[in-house]
Each structure stands twice: as structure tokens, then as C-alpha cells.
């Protein structure tokens, strides 16, 4: 086989849903000849051949949150469900990167919030929905409640040739993965070739984005050392309630916006305070971004991200908020 850029075999691009991000996983070149051979090889490693599909990342719904930055409660989450159901191309998967619920010390209330999350979530016309916990879901009880409703807090699965890894960096109460999970991750990856397409989804960033705001994972370097031999790794995370795209070595890290309220740019403000609610643009800064491949440039597996104001245009302006308040079914 001739030498080829293996990174070009697999790309993950995203397009805006208005709320949330739609990712497309597709071969970067025609699956013919030597490229097709490589897909076949990948298929042997992951159990399936790589084939085009789309998936959505949603994050930080904080069901049960009740505060000034978001007087609309679950409205953005419900809107996201509607928009996913309205897609022309139905996504194969939805990945939810934590903080499904907002924390409470009352276990019964927390269980009720988890039920409400699942009730809204099951409205999505999508075959597979996968989750990882956020600290609000699992930080106080070590993940007991989360496991009752959703199963293990870390796991992996294969989908159409892509290996997905759910990492838990919240249920030890501190921002860390821990030695047990690190050992599991290393073993989980053993069967894959270095060119296998891998998507990691987790709650907190796996690098030091802003430690003073607890935007880090203390043993994130250990995670990345395990992942670094692999050439096609994309990390999706939440927690920071805003867009972010980072490339650390050759690994791409993308944060999704929240479905409840937004945090500001930490480089422009000293305090970690939510961006105030704007009644004229009720969904502004919530889960909206456009991700696309680096069109026109050599295939390197890199992505470009544009922030877009697709804040459900029909709901923008004062008329929009009035519509929402008058018609809770919107």
C-alpha cells in the first residue's frame, strides 16, 4: 500500500442545528482502491466499516435549574429536541455531555429532575442516545443516582467504524478520571490501530482551559498520553457553557454550548458569572455554533468553527419572547 495521509480517511464535520451541534462522520475520500482497503482495515479493528453518518452533541441542560440567568427553564432543551426531530437527515446518535440535571441535596427531587430530563429526551426521534454525567448529576453521590437511571458512567461502543469513548471526570467529586478508569481506557484502546477514528465525549475539558474556573481535569494529561498515539481523535465536552475549539498536539477538543445559560469568555472577564438573560434574544449563546471541515485546504482532519446567530430567528426580538411565554408548547 502506498503511503497516504491516514488522517484524511475520516473527518467529522458539524453543522448548526440552531441549538446543539450536528456532526457528520464521513470518509474524506472515495472508499475505493487503497483508501477502501484502509477502511476495510479500520473495519477489522472496530468491528465495522467506516460509513457516513451524523450525530448530535447536546450539553448542560441542568433540568431543575431555577435562577435569573434562565427564566425559561427547560425551554431551550425542548427546542433542541424539536430541531433534531426536524432535521432532514436523521442523526444516528445523540451524545449528551453531562449536567443533564441541576444538583440538589434532596435525593427525591434529584430523581424527579432526572425523570424530567428523560421525559424530554425521549421526545427525540433518534435511535441511540448516549450520556456521560456532569458534576451536577454525579458529584455528590459518586454517581449512584445516575447509574440507577442511565447505567455506567464510563464505557465505549462502536458505531459504523467509529470508536466512541464515554469518560467520566466528575463522579469522584473532583475533576479527575482516576487510575481505575485510566487503566480501563488503556485496555479499551488496545485492539485499535493508530489510525482508528475515535470520538471521546466527556463533561469537563481534558486540558487546562481555565483552572481558576475549574475548567480542567487534573489527570487530563494522563488521558491524553493514552490517546496521543492515535491519529484521529476528537474530544467533545461540555461544562463551560460556551463554544471553544482547541487543538492540543494533534487532538481536537470542542466544547458545546449549554442549554440553560452561557458563561462569558474567561479571557475577557475576571469573574465567572453567567451572561445575563436577554429577553430580546432568549436563546442567544445557547448551544449554537457551526462546524465545518476546512474547505479548500489540504485534508488534515482539522475543523473550522463559526459562531452563528441562529438563535431560532422566529423567536428573536421582543416578539419572540412573548411568543414563548404565551405558548409554552413552542
Amino acid at each position, binding site marked *: 500500500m502506498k503511503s497516504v495521509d491516514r488522517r484524511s480517511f475520516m473527518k467529522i464535520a458539524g453543522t448548526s442545528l440552531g441549538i446543539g451541534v450536528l456532526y457528520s462522520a464521513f470518509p474524506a475520500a472515495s472508499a475505493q482502491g487503497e483508501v477502501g482497503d484502509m477502511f476495510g482495515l479500520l473495519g477489522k479493528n472496530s468491528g465495522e466499516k467506516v460509513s457516513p453518518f451524523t450525530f448530535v452533541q447536546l450539553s448542560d441542560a441542568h433540568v431543575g435549574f431555577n435562577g435569573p440567568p434562565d427564566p425559561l427553564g427547560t425551554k431551550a432543551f425542548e427546542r433542541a429536541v424539536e430541531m433534531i426531530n426536524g432535521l432532514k437527515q436523521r442523526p444516528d446518535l445523540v451524545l449528551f455531555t453531562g449536567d443533564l440535571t*441541576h*444538583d*440538589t*441535596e434532596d435525593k427525591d427531587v434529584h430523581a424527579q429532575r432526572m425523570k424530567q430530563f428523560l421525559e424530554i429526551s425521549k421526545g427525540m426521534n433518534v435511535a441511540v442516545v448516549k450520556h456521560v454525567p456532569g*458534576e*451536577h448529576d454525579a*458529584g*455528590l453521590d459518586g454517581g449512584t443516582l445516575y447509574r440507577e437511571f442511565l447505567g455506567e458512567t464510563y464505557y465505549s461502543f462502536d458505531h459504523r467504524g467509529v470508536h466512541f469513548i464515554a469518560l467520566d471526570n*466528575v463522579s469522584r*467529586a*473532583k*475533576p479527575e478520571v482516576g487510575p481505575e478508569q485510566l487503566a480501563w481506557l488503556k485496555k479499551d484502546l488496545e485492539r485499535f490501530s493508530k489510525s482508528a477514528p475515535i470520538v471521546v465525549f466527556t463533561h469537563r475539558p481534558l486540558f*487546562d482551559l481555565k*483552572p*481558576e*474556573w*475549574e475548567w*480542567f481535569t*487534573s489527570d487530563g494529561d494522563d488521558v491524553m498520553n493514552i490517546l496521543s498515539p492515535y491519529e484521529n481523535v476528537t474530544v467533545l465536552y461540555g461544562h463551560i457553557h460556551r463554544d471553544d475549539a482547541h487543538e492540543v498536539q494533534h487532538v481536537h477538543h470542542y466544547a458545546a454550548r449549554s442549554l440553560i445559560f452561557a458563561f462569558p469568555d474567561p479571557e475577557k472577564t475576571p469573574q*465567572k458569572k453567567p451572561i445575563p438573560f436577554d429577553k430580546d434574544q432568549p436563546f442567544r449563546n445557547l448551544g449554537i455554533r457551526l462546524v465545518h471541515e476546512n474547505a479548500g485546504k489540504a485534508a488534515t482532519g482539522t475543523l473550522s468553527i463559526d459562531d452563528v446567530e441562529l438563535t431560532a430567528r422566529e423567536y428573536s426580538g421582543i416578539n419572540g419572547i412573548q411568543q414563548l411565554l404565551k405558548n409554552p408548547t413552542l
Partner: protein
Amino acid sequence: MKSVKSSYWVKCVPVAVVLPALFVATLTTPRKAAAQGGPRVIDITAKRFGFTPNQVTVKKGETVILRLKSEDVTHGFFTRAFKIDEEIEPGKTTDVTVTGQNPGTYTIICDHFCGANHGNMNMVLVVE
């Protein structure tokens, strides 16, 4: 902002007067250490969702002992700048020795999830 020194005296002296001898001895030990040229001891209490005091000031080159305790649940005490990552468990006292080498303001956070407003639980260490 209160100075660290005044905060220490305000908190410790009245307590030492009314407590039994055993506790007075415990509390006076740090002051003796300070009087003998040992590091200054600064008491810091963690309670959801803040630290008291929430600002500590040290001189450049000064070494201090931060004496940590919790009044409710387990908290964290974390700052990358000083490579501090401690747990503050209720019923225990944790000492952290810090030397202010570079002037600046350093944020210390609770990194052990302690409840809904955990994300805003922090304090600052100022090196003058």
C-alpha cells in the same frame, strides 16, 4: 480588605481565652512558632460556598502555613500556580505550607464538588 494578621487575632484570641487549657495550648502553638521565627499560621475555614477569609496576603519570599478546616462537608483546596491540591475533610485540620515567590493574585478554588453553588467557591492569595 482585612489584613491577614488582624483577621487571625480577631478570630483566635477571644477563643483562646474561653476554651479549656488543652485547646489554648493547641491554639497558642502556632503563635509561639511565629514568635520564634517560624512561619505565620493563617486559619482558613471552608463552608459551602466560600472560604473565610476569602483573601490572604503574604509578602514576597514569606512562607506561611495555611491551616484548613471545614465546617460542613468535604471541600477541595486547589491552585495550579502553587501546585496545591488538598482535600479539607470535616473534623480534620489540614496544613498547607506556601511560599510567596512571585508577586501576583492567585485564585484558589474548591475543586471537590460540594453542592449547587460549588462553581463559585474560591478565594485569592495575594503575594505582595
